[in-house]
């Protein structure tokens, strides 16, 4: 267990996988050959640890499930009525020995899995900071209808539907919602977390490899939900400050008026950036100093929004 726990903070997934999980991973990878970008192709330590647990759990359970299914087929075939060689035992309805085994197998598996669950839930709690040599990058996330707003409080900039982070630096997210419940998820980087109006949730992720990663909302939030995805650009550490200064030279400023524009329901928003952001904006959204989104009536309806018989 201790080795397992240590393994969870390691970066490379393949070093600590048991054999069955490695086979499962190989099969999964083979079947997904040519594709990249899912949960089983993590690009950060959180994602790696999450998917490692996933494969381990599959391995543990396969050890039980595969023989069980095999036995089902074997019994069904051997004891078919047309098989004269099978012995008919109509009185075989109870066996103490079998009962003990039947109850023990699931119990033992669950006990082992319980250990995995306990350790994993604590190690990989989204709120748990990632230990690193450098301080984390702070990003404040606001889910709106139907786009994502990312505020960089340390750099005083903001972006919509586009998240740029430096490789290797842990990112600490603080999340809330401007209207309805959403969930922030980047499949290749790690765990998802819900966003709710008036409440702050947190998430900690790191990207290990440079690249573009798909991000989405996983909590259905209305008509524009399908367009509510964003791109995560993981860039080299020295490139990040250069991106920040580029943003700071161009684009609108995000003040409270600009925020009211963002609150209106729009779909399929194209990514853009703000060169500066009101530092108290996130806190104001969180504490309801700024009201939640108005929904489909007040402030103009978006395309294809036509509720019938409104209240």
């Amino acid at each position, binding site marked *: 267990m201790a080795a397992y726990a240590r393994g969870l903070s390691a970066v490379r997934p393949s070093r600590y996988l048991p054999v069955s999980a490695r086979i499962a991973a190989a099969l999964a990878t083979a079947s997904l050959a040519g594709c990249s970008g*899912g*949960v089983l192709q993590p690009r950060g330590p959180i994602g790696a640890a999450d998917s490692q647990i*996933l494969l381990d759990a599959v391995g543990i359970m396969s050890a039980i499930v595969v023989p069980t299914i095999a036995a089902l087929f074997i019994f069904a075939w051997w004891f078919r009525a047309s098989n004269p060689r099978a012995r008919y035992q109509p009185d075989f309805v*109870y066996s103490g020995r079998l009962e003990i085994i039947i109850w023990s197998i699931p119990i033992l598996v669950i006990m082992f899995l319980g250990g995995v669950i306990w350790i*994993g839930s604590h190690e990989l*709690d989204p709120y748990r900071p990632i230990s690193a040599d450098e301080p984390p990058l702070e990003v404040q996330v606001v889910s709106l209808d139907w786009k994502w707003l990312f505020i960089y409080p340390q750099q005083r900039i903001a972006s919509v539907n586009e998240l740029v982070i430096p490789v290797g630096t842990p990112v600490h997210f603080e999340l809330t919602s401007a209207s309805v419940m959403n969930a922030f*998820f980047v499949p290749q980087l790690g765990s998802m977390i819900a966003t709710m109006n008036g409440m702050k949730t947190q998430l900690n992720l790191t990207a290990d490899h440079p690249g573009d990663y798909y991000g989405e909302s996983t909590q259905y939030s209305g008509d524009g939900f399908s367009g509510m995805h964003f791109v995560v650009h993981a860039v080299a550490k020295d490139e990040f400050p250069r991106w920040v200064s580029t943003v700071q030279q161009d684009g609108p400023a995000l003040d409270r008026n600009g925020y009211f524009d963002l609150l209106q329901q729009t*779909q399929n928003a194209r990514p853009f950036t703000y060169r500066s952001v009101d530092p108290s904006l996130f806190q104001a959204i969180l504490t309801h100093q700024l009201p939640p989104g108005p929904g489909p009536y007040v402030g103009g309806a978006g395309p294809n929004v036509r509720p019938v*018989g409104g209240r």
Partner: protein
Amino acid sequence: MFVPLAVGDMLGKLTLNAIPLDQPIPLIAGGVVILVVVAVIAWIVLRGHLPYLWREWITSVDHKRIGVMYVLLGLVMLLRGFIDAIMMRSQQALAFHAAGYLPPEHYDQVFSAHGTIMIFFAAMPLMIGLMNFVVPLQLGVRDVAFPTLNSTSFWLTATGALLVNISLVIGEFARTGWLPYPPLSEARYSPGVGVDYYLWALQISGVGTLLTGVNFVTTILKIRAPGMSYLRMPVFCWTALCANLLIVAAFPVLTATLAMLLLDRYLGFHFFTNSAGGNMMMFINLIWAWGHPEVYILVLPAFGVFSEVIPTFSGKPLFGYRSMVVATLFICLVSFLVWLHHFFTMGAGGDVNATFGIATSIIAVGTGVKIYNWMFTMYGGRIRFATPMLWSMGFLVTFTIGGMTGVLLAVPPADFQLHNSLFLVAHFHNVIIAGVLFAAFAGLTYWFPKAFGFRLHEGWGKAAFWFSLAGFYITFIPLYAVGLLGMTRRMQHYDLALWRPWVLAAGVGILVFMCALACQVIQLVVSIRRREELRDFTGDPWNGRSLEWSTASPPPAFNFAVLPNVQGEEPYWHIKRRAIETQQLTAEPDYQPIEMPRNSPTGFITAFFATVTGFALIWDIWWLVGVGLACAYAVFVWFAWRDVEEHQIPAEEVARIDRARRKAREEWLATEGHEEWLTSHGQGGTS
């Protein structure tokens, strides 16, 4: 285009705008449905079937008739829900870098309706219908505890289904998913009538379901044949008991939670709103405190069906009866302790998440035990692969896989990546299709001869099974894969090429499923056409083991001429063995007149006014709400005022019916029963 009606306020918010004249799909679909309904009603009326239908079915309080009507409702709504599924899969198959043919506000209603209909109006009625038909017969008694209440329960469920279907042509349906999470479902973000349709349909049918729960708990615990102690009940009755205990304990939670949402929407309360202190997380906790027991309400009767089918077609008793009972009770209890696993990602912290994850894994123990018991029931048997047994095999293999993915999702770190993805969708379809749907078809095929007197055609039944099995795997294994690739649920369109092949494969799978559906329909038509060839003369077409097979097919209204005296498990099996051994039936009983409850239109009329009230509440037609409630109360008083509650079946009638049954049994005994006796004695006898 706004066309105000002259009656203005009298119709609340209802205007001609409510009819989707500018949306071709619901318009055509609604039109077709209305046409079919009108045609069916016209055929019934013009052919003079209405008096029969009213007398024998609509006002019936007989559990067998009510059971059949539940199943019929479930099958029709299964069809509607399946059409929604076809629309969803086809939309997703087409909507890669494209808009598809369903705009978001329509697609969102389709998937919400799909989930709502499938769970509340297809799966529940199918399971409740089977329980209605079978449980009193298996317990060796004449009816459930409260027959008129039973009828009312059915018609209230039908009311809910009707309201959901009306939303297709008048107004809209909810666009929130099958569970209306706030704040999306609050008036601010869903100002239309859609969520109201959903809420009132479920509140009304929820009352019906709760009453069913009360009815069956009382029946199973208080009304059994003499000698049938708890440990002599068939396992189907045990699972029915536990499912109904869950209904009694869980459905009030649904009622309360939806009532709070209704108060928010109608009267401006702040239970779950964004402002004034509302707490959306409370909705999620409450609704899943109902939601998780709900899935066990669905699956426990399914387990019960298999616990009947597998022993019968293996030719031996169920292995580990007491173990099964304990496992069922265990599942019943623990199902209330796991609800948080539906929202691990809401940020409850390591301790809470881990506790619920472990509890969820623990509940898998009960199910695992059952699978092994079924397996060892087959061991040492002589297995006949008739259609019900095929469905059971399909269930055993497929449900095990689904259960495995469920335990996988119970591990919070895994769930952090798979929550709300198509992996989750594949998991719950895996367990519900393999569990509830396969059980429904197994149970239907198994008990159809008992209900109607002739078997279903085997060939088409087997075809339906194989197409269903293939359809399931081809549709949902790709969804597991694409969930692992990061695709989330409820997407109206998507842009990642990575996901495309899997989504297309799932689209093919649904077509295979459609073939299965076609086979089921053909099976029904062919079986009815060829019913004389498929006739069940003795009442025991499968060599059954429990008491329902001792009656004729279909059983008379009173089920048993005299209640059987039960002295062991599998009472009917022993009756049969004794008859074969002694080569004669037991002596003819002394027939007495039997009192049965009178039919009553109460259920139907109450539901009619419930429909009126529900519709009026949705459209804010307040005067009609008052009228509907007053009339419903009046019906209740009128029913309470009747002087004669029962009618008597004279002893001669009972004797006549039962003698016909005995004659059929005697004929069987003289031919096949005699052969069996010869065989067993010729080979030195079996143990």
